[in-house]
């Protein structure tokens, strides 16, 4: 898919004036949309007396005290929360990329009885709402003694439970010429070597896309940590933000905005550096975010 816009067609040609109008309109819409975000980041940099009662995004002077207050706003510092989030997210990325690519390779490239049935079941699990398995999974992890550890958040990722990424990878693997692995087969390559030496190196873009989305989804995940983590020392940043609202009783908006802004930084970094991969991932698979 190329990024270049199609040439102007005779029927679509508009006057220069309508172009200006369109740009004005689009600029206004994007400004209105992004204003709350800008305002939050600005508010986190304002002296705390200036935060409320103004819609302006220009602070009288830049003041980082909200960040200091917010960082130590709970009994455990936000350093721990961000580290916890990072651990969970990185482990999830590793698990998803490893096991989803193994599964996708089997679906896209190997022939064995029952493959199509398994593939259909995998597509079926895409539709199944998480809530159906929520309670039994909770009971399972409770009995395993995993509550209040990262295991319930991470172990499922090592079992390719995010069917979406399997689907994404199957689509990509199928586009890689079959002649490559057939030639390798004739040379006596095992399936494992084909996967490891041929498929993976050729699939870096899709693996990266899956890794980035996997990171963002896990980083932003609120529901699972809310259920499984009880001790504040184990909180991920998202759950910590939630308990920040409760504890500060809405009085310290500066600290709350500062930590909220920090929690958005990793996602924003991926947006800045890997936008193309993200947009292509969405365009080719119809992902919801």
């Amino acid at each position: 898919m190329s990024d270049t816009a199609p040439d102007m067609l005779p029927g679509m040609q508009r006057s220069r004036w309508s172009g200006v109008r369109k740009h004005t309109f689009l600029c206004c819409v994007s400004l209105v949309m992004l204003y709350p975000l800008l305002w939050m980041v600005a508010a986190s940099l304002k002296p705390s007396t200036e935060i409320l009662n103004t819609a302006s995004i220009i602070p009288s002077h830049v003041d980082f005290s909200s960040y200091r207050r917010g960082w130590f706003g709970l009994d455990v510092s936000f350093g721990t929360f961000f580290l916890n989030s990072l651990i969970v997210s990185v482990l999830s990325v590793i698990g998803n990329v490893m096991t989803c690519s193994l599964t996708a390779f089997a679906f896209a490239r190997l022939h064995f009885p029952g493959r199509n049935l398994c593939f259909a079941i995998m597509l079926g699990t895409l539709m199944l709402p998480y809530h159906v398995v929520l309670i039994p999974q909770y009971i399972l992890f409770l009995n395993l003694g995993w509550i209040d550890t990262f295991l319930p958040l991470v172990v499922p990722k090592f079992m390719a439970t995010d069917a979406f990424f399997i689907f994404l990878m199957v689509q990509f693997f199928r586009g890689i010429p079959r002649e490559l692995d057939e030639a390798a087969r004739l040379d006596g390559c095992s399936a494992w070597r084909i996967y490891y030496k041929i498929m993976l190196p050729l699939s870096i873009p899709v693996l990266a896309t899956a890794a980035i989305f996997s990171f963002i989804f896990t980083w932003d995940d609120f529901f699972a940590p809310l259920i499984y983590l009880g001790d504040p020392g184990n909180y991920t940043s998202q759950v910590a933000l939630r308990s920040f609202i409760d504890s500060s009783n809405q009085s310290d908006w500066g600290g709350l905005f500062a930590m909220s802004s920090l929690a958005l930084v990793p996602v924003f970094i991926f947006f800045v550096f890997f936008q193309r991969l993200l947009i292509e991932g969405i365009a080719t698979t119809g992902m919801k975010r």
Partner: protein
Amino acid sequence: MRERMTGAASFGGATRPPRTSKLQSIREGYGFLMPWLAGLLGLTLGPALFSLYLSFTKYDLVSDPKWIGMGNYVRIFSTDPKFWIAMKVTFTYVFLSVPLKLGFALAIAMMLNKGLRGLPIYRALFYLPSLLGGSVAIAILWRQVFSSGGLFNQVLAMLGIKGMGWVSTPETALYTLVLLTVWQFGSSMIIFLAGLRQIPADMYEAASIDGASPRRQFFRITLPLLTPVIFFNAIVQTIDAFKAFNSAFIISDGTGGPVNATLFYTLYLFQEAFSFFRMGYAAALAWVLVMIIGCITAISFFMSRYWVHYDE
């Protein structure tokens, strides 16, 4: 994209005779599938069956599940006013936010599509809220923006309008959540942009030679050819909207308030399971949700015959 399509088409067709023995192919195939199979049985199918069983029981995590037959389902549909409140809130949310979101996404995608300069910049700006939007941080921001002393009221005050506590007023709280969802139209817009690019340019050329107005071109060419993409987007967004949780939880402090105005179905389910530990009842609620989503998907697919055009 086209290459991937043909890759998909050859799937299952044109299979060459296997060079390995059958036993070996089974060993290989299921070897690769091992983690997935373990997850499927242990974390998906097994739990799904177990939750179906639990939905016919009374279970509080402490004592053993007690079989009560259809008891939970009877209670859901006949004597549980909160279920109907949650249904009303969720359906209002889904059927307001999804059409608005898709309408907005399509309108902006149409504007960006016609050879507009700066397309990558606009696309990125519009996509950003959609990427960040799932975060708790954004829900917190929303809660402040629409509170009585919040940003929105500041802006209204500049225009001389007196605002109100939008998230604390039962009549308006749900609409702030709808707005939050519509705000995240970016990913749908990207899918529409990809769809628009697939429409052959010579169709428009022919149409304008025949003197068709841009309006007519939109309704006769663009819209019909885009219906598969619209349909796909609508299904994905609808299912997703039924599962919405984070925003309502943060904005209402987990209560679904004010006065149950933001009691999303999933929030109600969460409360039943993890505040009151009525695990059997919550499992029944989960299965009702599956049935609702299943029915709506089935109806959508049935209806799609009448308005979705696929290439022959």
